[in-house]
């Protein structure tokens, strides 16, 4: 291990637990607590990945989860960020998006062509001739993209959870810890999250050698641990902040959806790059990355480094590195005045050369860019422009960049905060925060650890006041003192275009100039055209510089230039965590288990599962026909529990139903059923069912299986609007419904009930209340399938009992269960339409031949006025029955096949059955009215150029005189 430092106080690695791992097939050793990047760096590996477009070698840059060029695959997992991937024993990682290996990537040739591939080049070529574009696109797709998915990869669903707290604090650095302690001591339920595996934030890298800071950190952590009402969650990312402080927290295991009464963001800042030639070479990194390497992982960032600085942090960094035996060759300070604080003096005392008013003009590398050999520094003139002719060469194997910061403000933006650029800190700071949202620390423009602690307390108190805690002394808002921590324009042109603004997407300075020249001159257009900020790190290291560049190009202020919209997620989050364990509530009838045992083919029907038929999957048609024949000849039993079942009671019940349905109910006799048809306000057929009157003020109503939920909801709404004295109860799930149908049904049923069910005592369309098999039941004589039959409604808990009793009693009659597909065939034979199957979202009653169901001279029902209008128009289509003459060897028509008249579409098949108990194929179709009279031929298009002839016939096909139902 060439670069591992001696043990550091507070280091995150455990030297007792060495780990073997592989990168690109080569074995290395690291420690528990390392991330892949730190372990590789410790082993002297400098090329950790390749860039997206030009395949340039890249190393550690931020070591803060923004190193989007050091992406690796581990087994089936890909696009993992090496700078936050915990090292595990026998980890086998390899870089993504390389051809060959990361150290010798054959695609690095792209870098040679970079001059031919300026920003947006792909919009300007490859599209002519048109036929070649697919070829080019295919090539481009292959070189684009990062990791490769494993199509075989599977993962058990992770559990998601909800959580609640008074105050969520994001970031356990100086401000966050101070805020947590202040709020915790007030008794607030606090959740404190930090994405790092250890709390402390900048205490753990920037202030590691500062005794007073360390002591404060210890104190704060002790208090946090001591207070039961502070829930500290490390390794937890607050990835998105949504309406009403709904925050998505991610850890290794799961996503937690947290509802916080208040949110305090103390997320800190991202250190920002400087833009100079070859600023992406491995070995060039942020000052904060160098300090993270040293203090968290005890890894030497480089042995001999140059610091490019523009703030006090750069000088602290220089002292810090020197203390660790790292040779700081020089500090180039962008500011002509340099640093006059004690931090500056200390560096001078250390004898480190300080070049004031200098920048790094370019970095020098060898071995195809993989090894940094030095930099050329040059002075800046008064305008801040480089003077390369006065450049001087500084040999080094590393550069630490410490020129400024940008707030980690994603959550605040998402939650609706507005920011303003403050030149005292040369940074965006929150200007207005929505209620319940608070910001503290560096994200708030407060830059020393002690001030951050105070700012954290201030924000915690403001939050407590917001949450209604009385008698709290507010702390006045601090302002930043001293020179700005950020440089206003750390961006330097170079004639050879490798001065990168966006490392993710390989966008260099000239690209911005070119985009601007083409008219992409506002921040959103710049983003879309150049793709700046659209890579995996979402612009954390590039957006601020892009804004600075654009502002200068437009000669505008930073505020006027604005920012792009910040959207979730803060860092990319896995689809599996987002999906989590899913709940898919399905509705089951009480007989569900029985059906399965009896060999039913179950199918989804809306939210329900229903038996289609009983029998083998490959005997569908035969099984359905056999079940149908059995109902026609003997007796069958079907579970129709999915029917909507509503109880409508109260003095105004009949009046209410008359307003909802098209028919009349005031004079309906008790113990009788009527057909009910309901439309929506536009006159479209919405629902149908039967309406049973059980008492003067008591109706029992059935509705379609699929529509009853929303229909019930609409009824509740109409009830309010009408202000009628009526109660509506949804009994759909409370009751089971069984339809016993067939010539023998009466004989079966009479064994089980004491109700007189003789034809005279209980006629067709009658309803009776009594018991069946000892269970309270409502019986209705309906004829949906066209045979003598009884719909038996019983409490759901008794359904199995009643069903089994019916089966048992029916055994001598050969009673068989039948499924919903069989029922569909039987009802088609009987000419009954199914709403939603034979009608569509624009069908009105006259089209479906349901005019008879509309009571004339009724003053009002829902949809009546619209129907009046629709009925003045000539009818455009009509639902008819048809039979097929002779299909010969032609393809058989299917539902939704078109009916043609020459080249004109004149209709559509809505239902069809090839095999029916009538022994010939039958169907229903919408056709133009001129074709609706019986005997009209229908040309059904069953395949391109092929039609089959049908003939319209009157409905129903079966038992037109209802003799079967007597």
């Amino acid at each position: 291990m060439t670069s591992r430092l001696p043990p550091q106080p507070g280091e995150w690695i455990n030297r007792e637990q060495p780990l073997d791992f592989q990168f690109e097939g080569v074995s290395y050793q690291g420690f528990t607590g390392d991330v892949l990047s730190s372990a590789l760096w410790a082993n002297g590996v400098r090329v950790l990945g390749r860039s997206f477009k030009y395949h340039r070698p890249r190393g550690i840059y931020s070591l803060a989860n923004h190193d989007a060029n050091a992406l690796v695959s581990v087994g089936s997992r890909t696009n993992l960020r090496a700078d936050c991937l915990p090292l595990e024993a026998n980890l086998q990682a390899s870089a993504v998006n390389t051809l060959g290996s990361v150290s010798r990537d054959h695609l690095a040739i792209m870098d040679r062509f970079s001059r031919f591939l300026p920003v947006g080049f792909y919009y300007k070529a490859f599209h002519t001739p048109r036929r070649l574009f697919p070829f080019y696109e295919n090539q481009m797709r292959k070189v684009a993209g990062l990791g490769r998915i494993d199509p075989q990869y599977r993962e058990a669903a992770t559990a998601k959870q909800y959580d609640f707290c008074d105050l969520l604090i994001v970031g356990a650095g100086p401000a966050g810890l101070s805020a947590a302690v202040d709020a915790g001591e007030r008794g607030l339920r606090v959740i404190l999250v930090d994405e790092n595996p250890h709390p402390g934030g900048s205490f753990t890298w920037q202030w590691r050698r500062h005794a007073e800071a360390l002591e404060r950190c210890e104190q704060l952590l002790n208090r946090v641990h001591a207070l039961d009402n502070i829930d500290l969650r490390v390794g937890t990312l607050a990835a998105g902040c949504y309406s009403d402080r709904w925050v998505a927290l991610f850890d290794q295991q799961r996503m937690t959806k947290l509802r916080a009464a208040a949110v305090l963001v103390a997320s800190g800042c991202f250190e920002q790059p400087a833009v100079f030639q070859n600023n992406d070479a491995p070995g060039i990194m942020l000052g904060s990355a160098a300090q993270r390497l040293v203090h968290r992982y005890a890894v030497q960032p480089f042995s001999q480094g140059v610091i490019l600085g523009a703030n006090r942090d750069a000088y602290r960094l220089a002292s810090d590195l020197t203390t660790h035996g790292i040779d700081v060759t020089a500090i180039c300070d962008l500011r002509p005045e340099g640093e006059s604080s004690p931090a500056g003096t200390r560096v001078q005392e250390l004898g480190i050369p300080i070049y004031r008013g200098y920048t790094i003009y370019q970095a020098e590398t060898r071995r195809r860019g993989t090894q940094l050999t030095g930099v050329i520094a040059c002075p800046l003139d008064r305008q801040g422009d480089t003077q390369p002719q006065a450049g001087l060469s500084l040999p080094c194997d590393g550069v630490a960049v410490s020129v400024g910061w940008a707030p980690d403000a994603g959550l605040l933006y998402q939650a609706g905060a507005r920011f303003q650029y403050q030149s005292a800190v040369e940074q965006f700071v929150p200007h207005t925060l929505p209620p319940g949202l608070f910001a503290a620390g560096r994200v708030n423009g407060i830059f020393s650890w002690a001030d951050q602690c105070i700012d954290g307390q201030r924000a915690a108190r403001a939050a407590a006041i917001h949450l209604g805690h009385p008698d709290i002394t507010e702390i006045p808002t601090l302002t930043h003192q001293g020179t700005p921590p950020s440089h206003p324009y750390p961006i330097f042109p170079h004639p050879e275009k490798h001065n990168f603004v966006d490392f993710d997407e390989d966008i260099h300075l000239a690209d911005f100039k070119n985009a601007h020249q083409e008219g992409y001159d506002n921040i959103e257009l710049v983003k879309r055209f150049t793709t700046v900020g659209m890579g995996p790190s979402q612009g954390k290291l590039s957006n601020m510089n892009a804004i600075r560049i654009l502002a200068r190009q437009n000669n505008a202020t930073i505020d006027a230039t604005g920012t792009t919209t910040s959207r979730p997620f803060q860092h990319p989050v896995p689809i599996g965590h987002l999906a989590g364990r899913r709940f898919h509530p399905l509705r089951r009838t009480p007989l569900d288990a029985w059906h399965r045992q009896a060999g039913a083919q179950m199918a989804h029907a809306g939210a329900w599962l229903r038996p289609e038929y009983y029998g083998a999957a490959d005997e569908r048609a035969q099984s359905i026909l056999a079940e149908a024949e059995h109902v026609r000849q003997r007796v069958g039993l079907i579970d129709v529990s999915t029917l909507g079942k509503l109880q409508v009671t109260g003095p105004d019940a009949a009046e209410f139903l008359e307003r909802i349905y098209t028919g009349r109910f005031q004079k309906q006799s008790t113990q009788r059923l009527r057909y009910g048809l309901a439309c929506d306000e536009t006159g479209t057929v919405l629902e149908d069912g039967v309406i049973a009157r059980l008492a003067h003020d008591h109706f029992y109503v059935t509705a379609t299986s699929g529509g009853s939920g929303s229909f019930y909801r609409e009824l509740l709404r109409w009830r309010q609007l009408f202000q009628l004295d009526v109660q509506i109860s949804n009994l759909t799930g409370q009751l089971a419904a069984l339809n016993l149908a067939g010539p023998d049904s009466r004989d079966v049923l009479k064994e089980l009930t004491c109700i007189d069910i003789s034809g005279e005592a209980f006629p067709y369309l009658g309803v009776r209340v009594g018991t069946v098999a000892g269970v309270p039941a409502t019986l209705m004589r309906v004829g949906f399938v066209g045979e003598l039959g009884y719909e038996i409604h019983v409490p759901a808990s008794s359904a199995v009992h009643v069903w089994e009793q019916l089966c048992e009693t029916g055994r001598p009659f050969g009673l068989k269960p039948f499924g919903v597909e069989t029922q569909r065939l039987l009802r088609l034979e009987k000419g009954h339409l199914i709403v939603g199957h034979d009608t569509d979202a624009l069908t009105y009653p006259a089209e479906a031949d349901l005019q008879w169901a509309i009571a004339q001279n009724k003053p009002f029902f829902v949809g009546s006025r619209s129907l009046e209008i629709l009925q003045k128009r000539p009818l455009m289509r009509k639902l008819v029955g048809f039979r097929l003459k002779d299909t010969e060897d032609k393809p058989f028509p299917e539902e939704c096949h078109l009916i043609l008249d020459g080249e004109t579409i004149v209709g559509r098949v809505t239902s069809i059955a090839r095999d029916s108990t009538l022994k010939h194929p039958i169907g229903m179709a919408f056709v133009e009215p001129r074709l609706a009279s019986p005997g009209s031929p229908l040309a059904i298009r069953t395949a391109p150029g092929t039609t089959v002839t049908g003939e319209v016939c009157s409905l129903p096909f079966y038992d037109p005189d209802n003799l079967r139902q007597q």
Partner: protein
Amino acid sequence: MKILTCPLNGPRPIQEFHYGGEFRPPLDPAQLNDADWGQEVHHRHGEPGVKREWWYHTASGTWFIAERDNLQDRVIQTYLYTPERGND
């Protein structure tokens, strides 16, 4: 997830609710000619601003009215429908 306050059940995540569209006072069909009726049935107040809307708390079966700013997604108030409050 947004919080919506059901007048009966109190504040709940909006996922517990069904959106019932704009509140429209019942029309008198007799007062409108065909074209006006066609417009009244289909047209909506879709412009930005505060709108009265129907919302339904699914688990308890409660319809109520919410006054909501459809630009800010801010709920001004919620209350149960009464003809007095509804049709003014």
